[in-house]
């Protein structure tokens, strides 16, 4: 198994960095050392930077929204009301549904002629059309990603909330702290480890999990408006057979992700929490 990890994790990671210094020909046509030429080519490509910014924006918006919504839901479910139990069960379902499957459903729901907004489009023609309008397409993608991202965050945050001792909440209530006050001064600070965990997971997740949604919903369009880096790498590598370019972008993206995760862990060490 350790051999499998070397074979299917370390060698591919190494190979991405290795190939980024070579001009690799498709179909095994040999290779040639080219130094930093691949990096120069990729970094001077406007398309790369556009995809990079779209990815970064997505990495901020999708986890932020998904975790925010999950937090509100978890706080509500933590009150132990009648709906808490069904909510805990149903809200986790999207975790079991592939992005590429729910993507097809969302394509239909957001279809300008057949979907939910079709009546609106009859009243105001051209108001909503993710097939033509890049912003609309980006929004549908974001919406689907949030839908798919809620369950895991919700479960983590709810588990965290439920370990907060009852006595703490009760003591605060006795001191006259209302529900809002308790959320802001007790529950959220004590939830720091779980919030941190969800941010780390969602950050990495939003980079890669969007692929299934993009491929089924927009195929990167219209006009590249939803081409995130992970999709661009796939198209460059598997459709355009530009192995060196794809490997170079892989190396850059892996470095960016590794740095961001490392930074988040640094940040976590600074934030000390005691229970």
């Amino acid at each position, binding site marked *: *198994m350790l051999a499998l*990890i070397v*074979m*299917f*994790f370390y060698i*591919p*990671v190494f190979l*991405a960095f290795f190939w980024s210094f070579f001009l690799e020909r498709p179909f095994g046509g040999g290779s040639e050392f080219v130094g930093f030429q691949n990096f120069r080519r990729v970094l001077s490509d406007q398309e790369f930077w556009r995809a990079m910014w779209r990815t970064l924006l997505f990495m901020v918006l999708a986890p932020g929204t998904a975790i925010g*919504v999950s937090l*509100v839901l978890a706080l509500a*479910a933590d*009150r*132990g009301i009648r*709906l808490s139990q069904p909510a805990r069960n*149903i*809200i*986790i*379902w999207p975790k*079991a*549904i*592939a*992005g*590429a*499957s*729910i*993507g*097809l459903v969302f394509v*239909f729901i957001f*279809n300008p*002629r*057949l*979907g*939910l907004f079709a009546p609106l489009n009859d009243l105001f023609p051209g108001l909503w059309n993710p097939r033509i309008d890049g912003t609309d397409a980006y929004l549908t993608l974001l919406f689907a990603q949030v*839908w798919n991202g*809620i*369950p895991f965050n919700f479960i983590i945050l709810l588990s*965290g909330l439920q370990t907060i001792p009852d006595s703490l*909440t*009760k003591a605060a*209530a*006795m001191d006259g702290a209302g*529900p809002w006050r308790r959320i802001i001064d007790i529950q959220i600070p004590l939830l720091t*480890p*779980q919030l941190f965990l969800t941010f780390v997971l969602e950050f*990495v*997740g939003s980079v*890669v999990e969007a*692929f*299934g949604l993009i*491929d*089924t919903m927009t195929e990167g369009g219209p006009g590249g408006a939803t081409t995130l880096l*992970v999709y661009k*790498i*796939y198209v460059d590598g*598997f459709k355009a057979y530009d*192995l060196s370019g794809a490997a170079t972008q892989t190396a850059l993206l*892996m470095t960016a*992700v*590794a740095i961001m*995760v490392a930074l988040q862990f640094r940040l976590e060490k600074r934030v000390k929490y005691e229970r």
Partner: protein
Amino acid sequence: MKDSGMIENARSVDRAATFILVAGISFILLPLVIAAITATQPYETFIEAGGLSFALGGHFLDNMEKILSETKLLRQLGNSLAIATIVAIMKVGFCFLAAYALVFFEGKFRRALFAVMIATVMLPLDLRVITTYQIVANVAMPLNWILDATGANWAIEKVAGFRPYFRLSLLDTYFGTAAPIAANCTAVFIFRQFFLTLPKDLPRAAIMDGAGPIRFMIDIVLPLSKTPIVATLLFFFVGAWTNYLWPLVAASTPDQQTAVVGLARIADSDIDEIPQVPLLMAGALFVSFIPVAMIAVMQRQIVRGLNLSSR
């Protein structure tokens, strides 16, 4: 249960919480309900209604029958089942052993081993799909490098007159699809966390009773770990099932593709005409049913076993 009702009047807060949960559950269920309703409509009614409508159609079984007879989704469902099972067993088996070694043994390489495994959590498979594909397309590639680098190839060329080049592709196989997904050590942390909660005297008592490390593992640790093992098995099964990018490139023939990939390919084929939406919605339910049922039934066990609260 948090009940502060004795101290303050919590009714209005509870009402707000109920409202939030209703909104949340509706948000999650809405796409699924729309998919389910549309899956019952015959194509003709769907066209007549001009698209999305909330009228039940009574053609659910017909649509399912079409899925079974006109597509390869049933076969692909079997592929998903096989691949997800292989992934879950490989991942959990390895991570259990690795965590066992990390927690119960002192060793020189412990820190190094831990570092080797932490990296696999940071860089998911979808990020390195290009080069992983190249390796799976020819798993003998590293062997060729070694032969080249050590000069063995040069020697063989001198003696035999040809340069050996080994080639073995695992594309379009269950193992080739499953192994790269399984090469990930997330569960090591879950098991490690769990083992650390076991009483410290447990291994000492086992040694006193004359049990070796393997005996101790099989007779004591394994039965105690039932909850996390079941939870991680289910969790990774579902994770592998819903994977898309890797299975998409690892298997190119419809007979070897997973159900999730197969469904997306059906949707791909008719992009210009009005798509067979009711059929696609039936397909989406068809490929999602097994993992959703697992999660819905085993929700408590999964949450408890993954021990998400104490990380």
